[in-house]
C-alpha cells in the first residue's frame, strides 16, 4: 500500500477514534467520570439502527434519527439512574458503576440480538473511492468521517463558547460548587453532557461499523483506543483528543502495515511509553492531586 493511502486511512480511523474519544472526554470534563460504558452505549444505539432497518424496514435516515434520540435518552437515563444515586463516590467506585452498566448493556444486547455477527449496510462504503488529487485515493467512508468529524467539532466549538448550556458545562467543569451557587442546575448539566456524549458515541459507532462488523462486542476495542486517545490528549482538551486520535490511527495503520500481527497493541505500547515521559498526556497541564 502506498504511503498516501496509509496516511489517509490512518487519519480517517484516527478521526473515528478521536470522535469517540470526544464522547469519553465530554463526560470526564463535566463530571470526572471515566465512562467505561461509552462503547456499549454506542453499541446498543447502533443495534437500534440495525433493528429498525432489518425488522421494520425503516429508511436509513429515519432509523438513524430515531437512534440518535434514543442515544440521547439512554445517556441521560444512565446518568440519572445509575450515577446520580452514588453518594460521595471515589474514582474506583465510579469506574465500577460504569463497568456495571457496560456488562448490563452488553448482556441485554447479546440476549436480544445474539452474539453472532450481523449484516449491516450503510449508504456509505469504503469500497467506493475518489481521487481528487493524483495519488491520493480517498474512500467514500473516509470522506464521510472527515466531514462529520469537522461538523461535530465546529458544532462543539460553537456550543461550548456561544450557548448558555455550553457555558454552564464549562462552569461546572471548573468548579461544581461555584457553578451551583451561580444558579446552575449541575445535575441537569451532567445529564445533558451524558446525553450529548452518547449521541457523539453513536455517530462514531455507526461510522466504525462500516469498517468493521456488528456484534455485541464490536465497540470494545475502539472504545479502548478512543480512551487511550483521550488519555493521550490529556482527558480534558477537545482539540487534544482529536490529535490523540489521529496519532493512534496513524500509529496503528503504519505499524500495522509493517507488523500485521502486532497491529492491535502497538498503539497501546506507544501510549504507555508516552505516559512514562508525560504522565498527564500530551496536551494537559500536569495532573496534580489536591492534598
Amino acid at each position, binding site marked *: 500500500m502506498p504511503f498516501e493511502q496509509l496516511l489517509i486511512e490512518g487519519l480517517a480511523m484516527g478521526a473515528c477514534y478521536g470522535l469517540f474519544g470526544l464522547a469519553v472526554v465530554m463526560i470526564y470534563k463535566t463530571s470526572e467520570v471515566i465512562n467505561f460504558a461509552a462503547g456499549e452505549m454506542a453499541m446498543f444505539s447502533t443495534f437500534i439502527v440495525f433493528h429498525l432497518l432489518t425488522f421494520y424496514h425503516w429508511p436509513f435516515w429515519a432509523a438513524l434519527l430515531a437512534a440518535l434520540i434514543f442515544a440521547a435518552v439512554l445517556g441521560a437515563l444512565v446518568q440519572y439512574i445509575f450515577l446520580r444515586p452514588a453518594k460521595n463516590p471515589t*474514582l474506583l467506585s465510579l469506574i*465500577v458503576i460504569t463497568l456495571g452498566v457496560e456488562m448490563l448493556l452488553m448482556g441485554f444486547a447479546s*440476549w436480544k440480538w445474539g452474539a453472532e455477527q450481523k449484516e449491516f449496510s450503510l449508504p456509505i462504503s469504503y469500497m467506493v473511492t475518489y481521487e481528487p488529487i493524483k495519488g491520493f485515493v480517498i474512500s467514500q467512508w473516509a470522506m464521510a468521517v472527515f466531514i462529520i468529524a469537522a461538523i461535530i467539532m465546529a458544532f462543539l466549538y460553537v456550543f461550548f463558547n456561544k450557548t448558555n448550556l455550553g457555558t454552564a458545562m464549562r462552569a461546572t467543569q471548573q468548579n461544581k460548587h461555584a457553578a451551583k451557587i451561580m444558579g446552575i442546575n449541575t445535575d441537569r448539566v451532567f445529564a445533558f453532557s451524558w446525553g450529548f456524549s452518547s449521541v457523539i458515541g453513536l455517530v462514531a459507532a455507526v461510522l466504525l461499523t462500516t469498517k468493521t462488523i456488528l456484534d455485541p462486542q464490536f465497540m470494545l476495542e475502539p472504545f479502548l483506543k478512543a480512551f487511550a486517545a483521550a488519555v493521550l490528549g490529556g482527558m480534558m482538551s477537545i482539540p487534544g483528543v482529536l490529535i490523540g486520535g489521529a496519532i493512534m490511527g496513524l500509529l496503528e495503520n503504519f505499524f500495522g502495515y509493517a507488523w500485521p500481527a502486532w497491529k492491535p497493541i502497538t498503539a*497501546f505500547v506507544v501510549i504507555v511509553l508516552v505516559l*512514562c515521559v508525560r504522565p498527564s498526556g500530551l496536551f494537559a497541564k500536569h495532573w496534580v492531586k489536591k492534598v
Partner: protein
Amino acid sequence: MDMKRAYYEDIELFKSGTILFWTIVLMVVLFTLPLFSSKYYLYLFNLMLVHVIVAVGLNILVGSTGQISLGHAGFFAIGAYSTVLLMSKLGIPFFPALILAAFIAAFFGFILGLPALRLEGPYLTIATLAFGLAIMHIIGHMELFGGRSGLRAPELNIGIQQLGWNLTLTTDFSKYYLILIIAILMVLGAINILKTKVGRAFVAIRDSDIAAEVIGINLTIYKTLSFAVSAFYAGIAGGLFAFVLGFVDPITFNFFLSIYFLVMIVVGGLGSIMGSIAGAAFITYLMYALFKNISDVPYVGDFVVSISQRWLSITGIDNLSAIALGLVMIGIMIFEPMGFFGIWIRTKKYWKAWPF
C-alpha cells in the same frame, strides 16, 4: 469498633476465642466439603479457591495501597503459562515451577509498577489496561505459547520426578486439597503482610501518598513492591488455574477477566481480606453456576423463558449472568460501597447493642 490496647492485640492472628472457634469450624467445613459434593461443584470450588488467591492479592494492591489495576488477567496469564512451560519444556517439578512462575509474574508486576509511580487516576487505568491487553496478544501470537489454540497443561505431579517420587493428582477431588492448602497459606501470608511495616506503609500510601512520603515511606519501593506482591499472588493463582482447567489459551485471559477480578474485591469490600474471599466465592458462583440451568428452575425459569421468547432471543439466555453481574456491581456501589464487609460491619454494630 474493637478498641486495641496493646501492640500485641493488633498483630495477633485470632483476636478472640469466638474468632478462633469459627475459623476452626470453617476449616473443618472446607476440608470435608468435597466428600459431599458432586463433580461439577468440585470444579467450581477449585475455581473459587483460585479466584480467592487472585482477589486477596489484588486487594493488597487496590484495597490497601489504593492503586487501580485493570490488567490483572495479564499476571494471571503469566503465572499460568510460565508454570505450564517450565514444567513441560524444562521438566521442573511442580512446586519450584509454580514459585518460579509467581516470581516471573512478580517481576512483571515490578516493571508495571515503575510507570505507575508517576501515573494516577485515568492514566494509571489505561496503563494497566494496556498491559493486560498486551500480554493477551503476545501469548496469542507467539509460537512458544501455542498461539491461539493455547497449551495443554502437563500431568499435575506434585512429587519430584527426577528422584523417583511420583504423586500425580488427576481428579478434581485431589486437586481441591492441593489448591485449598495453597490458598490457606496465601491468605495467611496476606493477613500477616498487612500487619507488618510493609502493610502499614501500603495503607499509608492509600490514605495519602504525599503524607506517607513526608513521614519517610519510600514511595518508589513500596508502590512497586505492592504491584509485585499482588502480581505474585496472581501468578500462583494462574499456575493453579492452568491445572484446574487442564489447558490455557489466550481468550481465557481477556479484558473481562480483569474486570471480574476487580469486581470480586469491590463486591467483597476494599481493603478487607475476608471480604475479598467472600467476594471471590460469590462472583465465581454467580458467573459459573447460578444461571447455568435457569430455564429448568420452576416458575422463575418459565418466566425467563417466556420473556426470552416474547421479546428477546432464547439462545442468549446465558447472558443473564452478565446482566446480574452488572446489576450487582451497580447496586453494591450505590447502596453499600464497602461491599459485603460493610454489610457485615453494620450488622455487627447493630446487634452489639441490640436491645438499646
